[in-house]
């Protein structure tokens, strides 16, 4: 056990800090449409050129081949630089945090060579086509079907809650390729070109006022069999590795940013006063909640470090990732609920979900943290069954 940084890690931190000082965008992220996509990809390209893309990805595919610790250091430095946007609120999220990592573990050499460098260089947007109207928590109950025709799959069906589908080039798509097999056995994970004929996309407005949620309809969409990742009818296994990245390391940037958010909130409580002119931080209840939030983000960081240590031993994030995801999701919500109690009348004023000094937009967005990537109920099932070994119902 130690908290030491190696000389290399120290140097890495310094390097990141220096680079961020002169390369961090100052303008706000456009909330929607082509402008948003352009902004996210330009930032990804800037990261790539600076050497900050794919920090823990293999060198041969354009990554830097460094450790998860260095990846975390980068997130910490990014959060400390007081950026005008949050790192994960980006249409590059899927590719960077689980699409790419899934290919690194399960992809063929051709798939890796084709896709990984383009992800890092900011040339493509990926989205995730897992959930369907009839298959959310029960993901394996999905019914979008794919029939083999020559060297192609022909896909017909519907996905929903697909973030950023309307600006995406490619998709992690789960389809049923064998309707006769038991439900976990007949699924295939395939890379779908979102520009293919037969795809129709409809945007959905979310409770946080953004429209990056989509429904996606597939009408005899043809996808080369060469795009299958991890083998035909073996898609459940591939999907589990996607989800282990999404739940295990995908939210590391958010976890790190939450610590900075709590510090910002403590600053607000020091500066703001109640009706009698007393600083809010002197209010016993608010002080206790703020201090508890500080203690809990400190726990979150320690859990993240423990998770990284475990992954360093085993190579892949395990089911323990669900413990962090669960703790983080609920804590994230508590922090923004607390924010609304601190910012006074500003709590009545709508802000964007992202940007400097915003609170109400992120508060509305925080509801996503206990639903997306598997609801907290599902995370609790996973902890109970896969970490603790309790019997299934």
């Amino acid at each position, binding site marked *: *056990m*130690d*908290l*030491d*940084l190696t000389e290399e890690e120290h140097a890495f931190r310094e390097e990141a800090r220096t680079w961020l000082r002169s390369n961090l965008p100052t303008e706000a992220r456009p909330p929607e449409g082509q402008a948003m996509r352009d902004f996210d990809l330009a930032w990804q390209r800037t990261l790539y050129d600076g050497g900050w893309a794919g920090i823990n990805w293999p060198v041969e595919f354009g990554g830097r081949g460094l450790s998860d*610790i260095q990846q975390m250091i980068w997130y910490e430095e990014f959060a400390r630089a007081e950026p005008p946007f949050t790192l994960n609120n980006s249409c590059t999220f899927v590719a960077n945090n689980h699409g790419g990592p899934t290919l690194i573990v399960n992809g063929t050499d051709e798939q890796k060579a084709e896709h990984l460098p383009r992800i890092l260089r900011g040339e493509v947007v990926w989205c995730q086509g897992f959930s369907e109207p009839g298959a959310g928590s029960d993901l394996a109950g999905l019914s979008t079907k794919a029939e083999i025709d020559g060297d192609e799959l022909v896909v017909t069906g519907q996905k929903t809650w697909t973030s950023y589908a309307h600006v995406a080039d490619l998709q992690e798509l789960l389809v049923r390729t064998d309707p006769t097999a038991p439900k976990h056995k007949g699924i295939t994970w395939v890379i779908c070109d979102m520009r293919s004929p037969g795809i129709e996309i409809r945007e959905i407005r979310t409770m946080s006022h953004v429209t990056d949620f989509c429904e996606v309809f597939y009408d005899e969409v043809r996808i080369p069999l060469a795009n299958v990742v991890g083998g035909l009818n073996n898609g459940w296994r591939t999907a589990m590795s996607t989800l282990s990245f999404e739940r295990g390391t995908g939210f590391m940037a958010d976890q790190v940013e939450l610590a900075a958010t709590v*510090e910002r909130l*403590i600053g607000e409580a020091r500066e703001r006063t109640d009706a009698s002119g007393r600083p809010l*931080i002197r209010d016993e209840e608010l*002080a*206790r909640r*703020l*201090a*508890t939030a*500080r*203690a*809990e983000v*400190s*726990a*979150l*960081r*320690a*859990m993240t*470090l*423990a998770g*990284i*240590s*475990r992954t*360093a*031993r085993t190579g892949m994030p395990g089911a*323990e990732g669900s*413990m962090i995801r*669960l*703790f983080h999701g609920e804590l994230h919500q508590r922090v923004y609920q607390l924010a609304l109690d601190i910012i006074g009348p500003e709590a009545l004023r709508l802000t964007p979900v992202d940007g400097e000094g915003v609170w109400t937009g992120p508060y509305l967005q925080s509801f996503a943290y206990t639903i997306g990537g598997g609801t907290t*109920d599902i*995370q*609790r*099932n996973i*902890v*109970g*069954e896969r*970490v*603790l*070994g*309790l*019997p*299934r*119902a």
Partner: protein
Amino acid sequence: MYLLPTDEQDEIVATVRSQLEADFDLHALAARDGAPSVVDRDLWRRCAELGWFGLGLEESLGGVGYGLVEEALLFAELGSHATPGPFLATVLGARLAAEAGASDVAAAVVGGESVVALAEPEGDRLRVTDHGDADLLLVVGDDGAALVSSDGLEFRTEPSLDVHVPLATVDAAAARAAAPVAQLADAGALLLRGTVLISAELAGIATATAEQSTQYAKDREQFGVPVGSFQAVKHRCADMAVRAEAATSTVRHAALAVRDGLAEAPFHAHAARAVAGDAAVANAHVNVQNHGGIGFTWEHTAHRYVTRAQVLVRTLGDRTGHLGALLEQPAPQ
């Protein structure tokens, strides 16, 4: 950065664990419920021979030469086993004596010859835990910490919430009248270690109760199936595991920060105390519930964790105090 125990540290834990299971079985110790001193001198000396009291003390000060991290691993096991005995006062008392230059006193404490009890201010009296067989009192207060002799002091015993943590009070002025056998004017560093060790003990309670519930949920059958297959029970167990993981990780992080003398060490120590305290109390409570009727019996050990957690979250400061101190700290850099 690596937050899991090394092989050597795992070995220390395994040794401690087997000793505790052999010598500190809670069902056997139930015979001493309410006794003025739960752990007898022989057993105390055996713990000393195992090196527990000087585990984190530098060799130059007469200790084993490990550090706070290993000491915290020991205390997590003490928490896990709801182990009775004045471990905290002993480990802190030995360090105080050693640092104050009273090496004879330190040696007697480390060797299990001198038994130390913790004394904390409560009005104009001192509240003493584990007073029964104590030779020395570790008196802590705003004005530092001191070891004083218990000779001639009049203890007023009281029924204790935790029957394995005997409780008494003593007149504060009387205790402070005699010259201390060792003294530190600034006890800040000592108390920071104490905060980490209590947090570790609390994290141990959170872990043990999570394990106890999980095991019972697998064994106990109702409606023809293990009760752990019911989602209400399963989710309570999952939440216990998350709280235990949060507490354990935070405590390890804090132990490292204090050991390394980092500027943000107090931040992490107070945070660990808050997180581990909440985890221990919540898990100890839910653990009773998960056991149904048997969890409510004297014979079952579930209640031992409840009362131990409640004692520990009120030892060397309380939740409000540690949260207040945490909020005073600058943000970690």
